């Protein structure tokens, strides 16, 4: 059993490589992951007269969040239309292997792309008092957001635009309830209670800590919450994809 799982994980590396070559080498991913959050943040900072360096942890969070969740919801309907999903299914890989490869690719690209907003933050004079914690948050957060994207990609739609719409409907509200623009400590109790349903909240809290602003929640609670979200997203995504994937073929 252990060997079987390891065998499938090794096979999933092929899918990781494929996703990076096909999907993540394209300009729009960088646009969605870096440029778009940066523009949104700058306009938000100017509009509310907030210090840009105070918003930087949130910018890193949004950048990682959008990069990691950009491709998976589009990739499944796209691969169905191109019949390449059929190709993968007829290869000796399990459905969870395909999902794992997809998730790894998204997470890996999220980790790499996070370097850009971190550099921007450094450029604006942000000092990361705990760079190791920042790096750990980026890794754990990327995996969590990539797994969430797998969940968004569950509906067996035929055209990528349908999941894109669903993806936007889920991601944008999360953006505004996660304390990205306003620290958790400044949110009203009701808004703060709502923010706990978003994994982005915990990532941003860690990022604020790493940037020297202090965290609202204990760090271990932030990490545990992200790991719990990842576990639930993964289990539900695999279960649902096993049900919906045959409907795509």
């Amino acid at each position, binding site marked *: 059993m252990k060997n079987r799982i390891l065998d499938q994980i090794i096979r999933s590396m092929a899918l990781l490589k494929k996703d990076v*070559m096909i999907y993540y080498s394209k300009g729009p991913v960088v646009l969605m992951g870096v440029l778009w959050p940066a523009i949104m943040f700058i306009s938000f900072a100017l509009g509310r007269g907030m210090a840009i360096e105070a918003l930087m942890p949130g910018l890193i969070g949004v950048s990682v969040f959008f990069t990691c969740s950009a491709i998976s919801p589009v990739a499944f309907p796209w691969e169905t239309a191109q*019949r390449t999903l*059929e190709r993968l299914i007829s*290869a*000796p890989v399990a459905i969870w292997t395909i999902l794992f490869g997809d998730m790894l690719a998204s997470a890996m690209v999220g980790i790499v792309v996070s370097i850009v907003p971190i550099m921007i933050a450094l450029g604006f004079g942000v000092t990361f008092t705990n760079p190791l914690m920042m790096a750990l948050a980026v890794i754990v957060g990327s995996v969590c957001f990539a797994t969430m994207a797998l969940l968004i990609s569950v509906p067996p739609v035929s055209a990528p635009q349908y999941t894109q719409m669903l993806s936007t409907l889920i991601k944008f509200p999360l953006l505004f309830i996660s304390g990205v623009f306003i620290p958790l400590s400044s949110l009203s109790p009701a808004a703060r209670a709502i923010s706990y349903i978003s994994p982005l909240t915990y990532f941003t809290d860690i990022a604020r800590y790493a940037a020297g602003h202090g965290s609202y929640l204990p760090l271990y609670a932030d990490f545990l919450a992200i790991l719990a979200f990842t576990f639930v997203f993964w289990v539900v995504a695999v279960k649902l994809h096993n049900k919906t994937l045959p409907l795509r073929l």
Partner: protein
Amino acid sequence: MDNASTGSGPAIEVRGLTKKYGKLTAVDGISFEVMKGEFFGFLGPNGAGKTTSIRMLTGIISANSGEARVMGYPAGSIESKQLSGVVPEQSNVYMDLTAWQNLMLTADLYRIASSEAKVRAQRLLLQLGLDERKHSHAREYSMGMKKRLLLVSALISDPEIVFLDEPTSGLDVQSARFIRGLLLDFKKEGKTFFLTTHNMSEAAEMCDRVAIMNRGRLVALDTPENLRITTGKVSLIDVNFDKSIPEETLKAIPGVLRVESSQAIETAEIMKAMVAMGGMGPGKMGQGMKGGGRAGMQRAGMLQTQPPEASGKKPPGNRFRLHTENTGELLAALVDFSRAHLLKMNVLSVNPPSFEDAFVMLTEEANREK
């Protein structure tokens, strides 16, 4: 894995396999076996359930009931997929990757060591004439090249069994012949092939045995030659009169089982010619013609504007194919018939049924029984 895959047992075992889509039963309790090293043909008209069956055997879809095993493992299991290669009817390679990248991806999915994969890919690309374009994106490939790339992808893992779904459809004569030749070469290596095709001459040439499907059911299973002989008690007499006569008159001659008019014969000949031109099956007739399908064929004078059957009455003709089980009696009756009607026979030939004739007879017979 080796315990099940080695030995001389069947490569494929199918027992009561059934697939339903809502109320439609696409595959209806079929059972058969394919032996290791066999080139097995899986034939049938459009909608017979061939592709659904191949998709169940390769694990793309699951069956509603019944059992299928490939190389001793349940169809669709990781083990059976590891030992199988699949050439689908429609291209499913990654268009944004080069041929080489596509092959390396497949090799990685099958866990072929990188050095081994490179050697195999290089050899196969050379064999299939794709070596010079191996670094071109698959989207830049012609249809023939894509088909060849699919074949290389299916063979790179050195599978024990290869599923081929219409591997030569849409190809020109040279490419189709080239692929058939290669497949026969690979058969010598002991691989098992499971082929679906509309091309009867291809099936007769390549297959050790064929199964004929019709409306989801298996209607015959034997060697192409045996199937031809089974239906061989029926002879075909081609006759060409100097004047047109109604088809019904010929049906009245004693010993005539069936009459095909010149229209049917010509259509069959066109189809045969098109299959030879591009490996097209009856369902794809006209698709590959410039000028757009049926309209293109009409412009080329290959089809009448309106089928004669559409008017409810067949027009008289002078060229017919008569089916009979008593050749001598019918020949004598034809001589009497032409004398009585003051007709001259320009052509009179007796032919045994071809494998294609046997296929048509078997599927028509099954339709009548249903």
